[in-house]
């Protein structure tokens, strides 16, 4: 993650549901995050993530073209790369160990998304 302590965290939202993206953006902005961009599918998510270099990518697992897991592989979650937080309307148990093997920072069920849960996942104390 590129953000230094105290700096505004820059977030990219990748989700194919416009209504969810709008609500997530409003929720995160209200909590002090900076939403630098949005993408509606996996390919454009990879491209925008490389162009904008966000601190955090909020990434839906089920996208219309490629899966969120493939986006994680291509964007990467290592040093100097954005922290990727997977989201889904399904539960984490529906994916078994695939989430922990994916290289993403963590997972949040969409209905549980909030500034608090996101911060906990980013800091490594979340669900």
């Amino acid at each position, binding site marked *: 993650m590129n953000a230094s302590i105290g700096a505004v965290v820059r977030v990219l939202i990748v989700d194919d549901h416009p209504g969810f993206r709008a*609500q997530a953006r409003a*929720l995160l902005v209200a909590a002090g995050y900076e939403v630098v961009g949005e993408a509606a599918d996996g390919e454009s998510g990879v491209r925008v993530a490389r162009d904008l270099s966000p601190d955090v990518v909020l990434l839906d697992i089920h996208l219309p073209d490629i899966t969120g897991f493939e986006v994680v592989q291509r964007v990467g979650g290592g040093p100097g790369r954005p922290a990727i937080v997977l989201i889904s*309307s399904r539960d984490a148990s529906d*994916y*078994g160990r*695939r989430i922990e093997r994916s290289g993403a920072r963590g997972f949040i069920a*969409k*209905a549980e998304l909030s500034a608090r849960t996101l911060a906990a996942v980013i800091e490594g104390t979340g669900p």
Partner: protein
Amino acid sequence: MTKRRWGLFALGITLLGWVIGGEWVSIHALVPENHFIDALPGLSFLVAGIVALDRRPGNCIGWLMIAYVVVSYLGNWGNLQVPVVPAIGGSIGQQLGGAILAHMGLSYPTGRLRTRFERAVIGIIYGVSSVASLVILLAFDPRADGCARCAWELAPFPSRTAVLTANLVAQRLGFILVLLFLAAVWLRWRRATPAERRELAPLWVAVCVVCVVDLMGAFASPFPVVQPFAYLVWELQSLLYVSLPIIFLWGLLSARLARSAVGDLVIQLDRPLPPGELRACLARALVDPPLEVLYARDGLDGWVDAGGQPRSLPEPASGPRTKTVTVVERGGQALAALIHDPALDQGLVQAAAAAAGMAIANERLQAEVRAQLEEVRASRQRIVEAGDAERRRVERNIHDGAQQRMATLALSLAMLRDRAASDPAMAASLDQAAAELRQAIAELRELARGIHPAILTEEGLPAAVEALADRSALPVRVLADFDERLPWPIEATAYFVVAESLANVTKYARASGARVELSRCNGTLRVAVTDNGVGGADATRGSGLRGLEDRVCAVRGSFRVDNPPDGGTRVLAEIPCDA
């Protein structure tokens, strides 16, 4: 006796006269040779030719034998010393005999030349012999050879040099023609099927005999009486030629000998046969191990094997190794098709099929039943798979529709809740609404999971069963000895066996724990769910277990419910992984 046999009898008598008469002419012309030995090959070819024409009327080898007799003894009639005859006898008699023998050899045993190469070889041999005959016919003047009584001859261009040259050229070319003939025989052997090779064995014997005879001929003299050794060789030659037609005839009639095997077949079929045994019996009787038997579908345009599996007949003959199809009919209706070696005698195949008629009809009925059972099973599998596909579609729709909207709604409520922090009553109402929504989301998620478990698609069977165990109200231990993915119908079937069994354990077994074992062995997936409850489960009662059994059978699996004496219940499903 039939008219045809009377005709053959008359032909035989005529040819007998031709051979004996020729020898009589030779005796009166004081030809220095053993006339009895000279007549023997002709008589041998004559008898064999007549028998072959009688037993194999559609086969031209009989006619070739007759032609050989006629041509070979023209030379003897040439001693008649009447106009024209000596020239014809000397030319045609000397040249065409070998060509006819070669034709007989390459067309053995069917009487047909099969390949373009064989036809070309025989065509060249006839061509060379005919040209040599024509030259001799036009140039041979027997008066120059001492035939004082030959008052008039055909030879318009009498030339001893031309006759000797034609004979010499024919001899030299003969060497090449023999090589071509041997090449054609070798090619036939190389391309032949095992059954054909068995049939070709007499041909090889005949070829060896001819080679030995011709080799001996190299030592022989045109005037054998003046060279005792050469004369002895000539006598041996004649005796060996006697064996040639016998060898050919034996080969032609060997199919008739094989018919005794059909008698054995009748005895073998006089008992109930296990499925597929009829094919083995027919293969043994016809000495064609790869023989196949297909059965016609009742009222349908198609064929099945003894196991009821759909099969198609091979394409019509397109090459030397193409199989031959003999359709067995009863009352104009096709019963079965025998797919066999093309070298088999058609009459023998028909005889075997007739002998096995009742057994074929019985096995066809069994194959029909098996085919129908297979169709029902495949139909059941398609229904199950269509149901699974529909469940996946419904789960996907729930995920893409209601679950997404409810997640978005949860975010909206959370934002409203944050803004209503200064209004406790509003905050409480929003908290209650959010709690209700969370409950609804959880219930919908559980419902979707029951319709189709997403983890099964995502992670495969062992992970999905682990997730089931995690959510179970009882402690469940999962033992899986593989991690790889299996075909979707297999994974889905195994998953629902475990899910339904664990649900039953929770509801009825009063158990304190359960164990799920997933293992693969010899291409079969074994799923066992064991509990330590009160037992008493019965697969014949209750729609849940019966539904599982139907589902497992639909993918060719087996399903069993055991109640061990020491308590508990074990549900066991075994599913072939290639189902």
